[in-house]
């Protein structure tokens, strides 16, 4: 053990997307020593691909306030979101967006020089009234603008980066206190122990478990896998967001901002079908609503194209100027991948796996919480999570567009604030438990096996197809039950998978194997949680249980790896200062 390289920091941040970088920045301000471990160079993190914008009730374009934003978020979540966390996020939003502007984010501007805001799905004025315009945008490259700015700020703050290091597993003192992680330096293949008094997981989402998805290849749920292996449950994993407008058959994201700028969807009859599904909000209804509408149009034979397998997104009526100024990124995507210019031709789209609403259960300070002996929300000492890998839960059963970039900066910062406080009280590093290090190294050693067996690529493809088939937009008991069987069979086969490349230097085959193990954990949690929840809520649509059932199911799921056990905990319906928004039928 002593031969392993070892580094010591106050805080270890795993993941260098917006959540991890915002946290690292906050910690630099209190002069904590921070190590940011990322399996890719920070600006390659998937925050870079976020397009439409970040929500804050700045009221630059239309009247707005944080309380309306809170209402929309609670309603969007299909009442599964925790209202204390949602209030906290919506109250913090304006301040944090202004702070991003001060840090240099090149937001688009209104004529009066203020930050440009566009309408987005599920937004309203005055608690369900007229459409609001709450999404602050840097053209349709907002994620890129924010991620690069946060990285630049961290350069100024001289944050310590471990670029292209892959975190393998958490390490502890053997008594449940998390003390850092074992990571693999990808370029040399050498493991390293990074000890820390606090560890923040900011590892992003896991939509790579589905075949057609908007996610980068790196979105494999690594933090979620680590947490499950450490005996901690994942929360609300049945809630996976399918974005209504992925490029049909390919999956690349076409921002909701396209509809926010005035675009709309049509079926093969040229009908604006969203008018039937959401008479008021129409194309700017919540994402779950629009995705189901598209899937229904296609199922009922009104899809476009020779296979009738998609619908069309029209922005050509907006004029070349609007497309060029407000939507340059998706124009580039459509030109590259479809050889069409959206300024004169509609874009073929279909719902695509996009966002992991569920994740590592945390409270609004970013502390990872689980029911062990003291109650449903017992904090795990030393462990924090923020961003898409976490479940605070501000998104509940369905996330609103523009709330994801907000989530990462709000809770990245909140977690860092709590960590800074915690560091004051736990001044010294605790001794490590050797067994937890051995276990992490065991994960690596398992792939050194040289014999015949299946390849990682084959199993990965089958897992993605299985999840798409058996755990997609519409679900039933029979289909999900078969999905569980099939995913568990794949998990068995993964035990016997082998690598043919055993070299040390930049062995990406080994990284993909470790990633597939994480994807497998997340897929099992997802399909098992989905089978158990016998109601339809937000993104989880059960054909056999078409109604929401608050009496039995207004509660969060918790999936434990050990015994594949499910437990439940109540939704925090009490906000911090205002009255609760009671559950109501959800119409747009």
């Amino acid at each position, binding site marked *: 053990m002593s031969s392993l390289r070892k580094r010591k920091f106050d805080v270890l941040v795993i993941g260098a997307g917006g959540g991890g970088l915002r946290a690292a920045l906050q910690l630099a301000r209190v002069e904590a020593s921070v190590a940011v471990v990322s399996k890719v*160079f920070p600006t390659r993190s998937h925050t*870079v691909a976020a397009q439409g914008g970040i929500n804050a009730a700045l009221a630059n374009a239309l009247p707005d306030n944080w309380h309306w934003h809170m209402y929309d978020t609670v309603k969007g979540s299909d009442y599964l979101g925790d209202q204390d966390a949602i209030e906290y996020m919506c109250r913090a939003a304006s301040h944090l967006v*202004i702070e991003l502007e001060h840090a240099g984010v*090149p937001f688009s501007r209104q*004529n009066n*020089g203020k930050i440009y805001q566009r309408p987005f799905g599920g937004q309203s004025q005055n608690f369900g009234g007229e459409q609001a315009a709450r999404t602050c945008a840097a053209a349709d490259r907002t994620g890129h603008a924010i991620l690069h700015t946060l990285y630049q700020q961290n350069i100024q703050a001289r944050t310590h980066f471990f670029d292209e290091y892959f975190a393998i597993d958490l390490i502890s003192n053997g008594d449940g206190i998390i003390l850092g992680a074992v990571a693999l330096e990808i370029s040399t293949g050498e493991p390293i122990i990074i000890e820390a008094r606090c560890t923040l997981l900011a590892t992003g989402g896991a939509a790579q478990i589905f075949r057609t998805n908007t996610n*980068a290849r790196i979105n494999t749920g690594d933090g979620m896998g680590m947490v499950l292996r450490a005996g901690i449950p994942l929360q609300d994993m049945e809630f996976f967001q399918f974005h209504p407008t992925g490029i049909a058959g390919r999956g690349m994201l076409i921002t909701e901002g396209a509809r926010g700028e005035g675009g709309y969807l049509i079926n093969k009859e040229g009908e604006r079908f969203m008018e039937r599904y959401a008479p008021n909000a129409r194309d700017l209804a919540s994402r779950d609503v629009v995705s189901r509408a598209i899937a229904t149009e296609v199922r009922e034979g009104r899809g476009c194209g020779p296979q009738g397998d998609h619908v069309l997104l029209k922005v050509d009526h907006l004029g070349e100027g609007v497309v060029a100024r407000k939507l340059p990124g998706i124009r580039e995507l459509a030109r590259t991948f479809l050889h069409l210019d959206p300024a004169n031709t509609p874009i073929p789209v279909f719902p695509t796996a996009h966002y992991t609403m569920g994740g590592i259960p945390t409270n609004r300070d970013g502390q990872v919480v689980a029911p062990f002996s003291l109650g449903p929300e017992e904090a795990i000492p030393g462990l924090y999570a923020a961003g898409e890998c976490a479940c605070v839960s501000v998104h509940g059963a369905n996330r609103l567009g523009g709330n994801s970039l907000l989530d990462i900066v709000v809770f990245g910062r909140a977690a860092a604030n709590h960590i800074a406080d915690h560091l004051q009280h736990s001044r010294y590093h605790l001794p490590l438990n050797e067994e937890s290090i051995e276990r992490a190294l065991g994960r690596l050693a398992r792939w050194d096996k040289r014999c015949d067996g299946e390849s990682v690529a084959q199993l990965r493809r089958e897992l993605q197809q299985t999840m798409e088939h058996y755990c997609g937009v519409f679900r039933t008991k029979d289909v999900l039950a078969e999905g569980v069987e099939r995913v568990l069979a794949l998990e068995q086969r993964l035990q016997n998978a082998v690598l043919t490349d055993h070299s040390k*230097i930049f062995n990406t085959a080994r990284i993909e194997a470790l990633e597939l193990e994480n994807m497998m954990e997340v897929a099992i949690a997802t399909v098992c949680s989905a089978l158990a929840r016998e109601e339809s809520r937000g993104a989880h649509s059960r054909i056999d249980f078409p109604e929401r059932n608050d009496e039995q199911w207004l509660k969060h799921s918790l999936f434990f790896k050990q015994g594949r056990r499910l437990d439940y905990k109540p939704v925090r319906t009490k906000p911090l200062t205002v009255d609760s928004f009671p559950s109501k039928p959800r119409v747009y």
Partner: protein
Amino acid sequence: MRFSIYRYNPEVNGGPYMQEYQLKGIDPSMMLRDALLRIKEQDETLVFRHSCGEGVCGSDAININGRNGLGCITPLASLKQPIEVRPLPGMPVIRDLVVDMDRFFEHYRSIKPYLVAHDPEPEVERLQTPEQRDRLDGLYECILCGCCTTFCPSFWWNPDGFRGPAALLQSWRFLADSRDQATAERLSELEGPYRLFRCRSIMNCVEVCPKGLNPAKAIGRIRQMMLKHIL
């Protein structure tokens, strides 16, 4: 479809070599990165970086038939066969198509790629007219893929001294920002014969930028600003 790919693993190879691969039944509208992934399914030892698959993360810059580009947005149909794929030129190779980008990022960090403002922060956003903001278009979109810098002969000749087009484009991104207040510092950091002035307007950077940006123009603007500043 035929491919010829640069291979080098320092653990097992004495030196680099080109390896031939063939893929059958390939849709020519497929992107090069997808073809590389197919090849990797046949031969797991082939190593390259990639992630987003849509040209926004900047991971998969490689040299394709002699030109730098991103694998994920380069359609196979546009390429002459055998498609020759090499690592970015002028950079130390770690393995196969993966190069060591440290020097590239050192140059990026050296231009102080962050907004510097000395005035007290207002409690609202700093105002910027749409016209002032428009000056950042074509600059902030840089994805730091390295295609331009590693295709620049001036950078090959002076890799330590010359900042390279990517870093200089970002320098101009801040100089052009109406909110930035470090103009003098930024300009003085670029003084001397190498950091900025090694640019010989060869324009390779403009030719290969996968995002259609124009670092050469940005470099010209910095030079103009520097002259004005001196006079």
